[in-house]
């Protein structure tokens, strides 16, 4: 459970986050909104790249904002980025291993190798784990990023458009994997995406941001029917669903 209270982020005259108060329960949560609504800014605050002027974030009872950014990875925070971050010249195994070793993941009861191979298998990568990422398809490169986000007992997984650029069938497959994260990895997932089908299929709860403000929040089906949400979207972007 993550509790966000009165979170405000300002850069000069811009306010990407305007006193946002919300709770994310255990499970898969969607975070949607038109471009510039403050979704990525929220992730940046979570991972420590941006320091909010006001507000608190309490994750599983701990004050997240009090931790320096590299400590957050050790605490169990994982994140993916909109742009591809899997390192081409390293193998799949090394890509995942680097997260595991630098996040100083706990290996009681297993070994580092088992954890890493486990994560690669969990996301459904079929290629040889020792193959270079450069040799993979776009789909598998995206899966490598997902494996990096779930390796080593994560507590909170932030996914920023993890399926961007993938065709529909591969997006559906990825949705299936994302849906299984809370149960298999015991981690809370927050998914930012513009693809409403993906959000509908994976998230039990959805929050909507518009111009830095929270405009709706609740069970997925209800929120997506909300008129205010429709307006926010239709005003700026096309609803894909």
């Amino acid at each position, binding site marked *: 459970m993550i509790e966000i209270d009165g979170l405000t982020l300002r850069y000069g005259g811009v306010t990407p986050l305007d006193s946002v108060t919300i709770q994310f329960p255990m499970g898969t949560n969607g975070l949607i909104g038109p471009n510039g609504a403050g979704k*990525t800014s929220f992730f*940046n605050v979570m991972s420590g*790249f*941006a320091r909010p002027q006001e507000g608190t974030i309490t994750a599983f009872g701990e004050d997240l904002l009090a931790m320096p950014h590299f400590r957050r990875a050790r605490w169990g925070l994982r994140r993916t*980025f909109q742009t591809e971050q899997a390192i081409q010249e390293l193998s799949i195994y090394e890509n995942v291993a680097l997260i595991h070793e630098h996040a100083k993941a706990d290996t009681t009861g297993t070994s580092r190798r088992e954890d890493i191979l486990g994560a690669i298998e969990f996301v459904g990568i079929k290629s040889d784990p020792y193959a270079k990422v450069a040799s993979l398809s776009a789909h598998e490169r995206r899966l490598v990023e997902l494996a990096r986000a779930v390796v080593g007992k994560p507590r909170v997984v932030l996914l920023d458009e993890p399926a961007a650029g993938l065709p529909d069938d591969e997006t559906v497959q990825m949705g299936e994997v994302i849906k299984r994260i809370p149960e298999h990895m015991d981690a809370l997932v927050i998914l930012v995406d513009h693809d409403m089908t993906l959000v509908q299929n994976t998230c039990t709860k959805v929050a909507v941001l518009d111009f830095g403000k929270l405009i709706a929040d609740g069970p997925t089906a209800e929120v997506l029917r909300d008129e205010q949400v429709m307006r926010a979207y239709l005003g700026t972007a096309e609803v894909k669903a």
Partner: protein
Amino acid sequence: MPSWTQLQPFIVTGLSLGGVYALSGTGIVVLYRTTGVLNLAFGAIGMFGAFLSWQLIHEEGWPQGLGFLAAVAFSVVAMWLYGMVFGPPLAQRDPLVKASATLGFALILLGASSWIWSAAGGATRFQPIPTDTHHFSVGEAMVNWTQVIALAVGVLVVVLTGALLRFTRLGTAMRALANDREVSAVLGVPVRRVEAVAWLWAGVLSGVSGLLLSDLVGLDQVTLTFIVLISSVAAALIARLRSILGTLVAGLGIGLVDACAQPFSGISRYHDMAPFVLALVGLLFVTRKGGALAGRRIV
């Protein structure tokens, strides 16, 4: 411990050299801010121009004025050509790559000039400028007009460049480019044309400083390429590659410290380390104040 009277000539030397460092430092900063290229061939281009004018005047018998003009013209063309040929393919690359590429250009110029004007035979070349022979005294120090010109041109160029950036449309465009190239392009700033102007202007500054230094320091390839480059880059660095006025102050400061350390027996022989030491102190100051990363864009 030298007396005030003994120190005076060194202050004159320091100020004149400092003026040239400020001049080339400004060229480096303006070019960097506008095009994103930190040009480490700045010294080499001026050096080649100075050698060219020496050749034209002393070997080919050109009139002095024309020879000097040719030096500046060479620098302008060389700078502009480099910018036009290597600017676009490297535009999207890291500033570090752009800076390293200019080193390649510096090596070519250095190699070519050593080949054409080889130092073999121990022949030293001088590039006297007519203003050398006219001097007057200030206090105990003899000042020649070349030194006055060096300082005056340095200060003038810095003030002029600052005013240009602030008060003209071109200057506004340059500052816009320094801020954000993509946004500027979208807003209709003619990026390529503004960049071309920056390259040309940097060429003028490098040509003039090459000429002045060939007189003040001597015609030597390595000295003109590196010692001068290092001093000007140090001035630019202390000004955080940003402030024109800061470059002027830092340039004069480096020139002064370098020259005034000479009469002190303990540090005399180390005086040329001044740019490194001052730049290091400047850097320590910058990092101590923090905030260096504050303006950096994340993600």
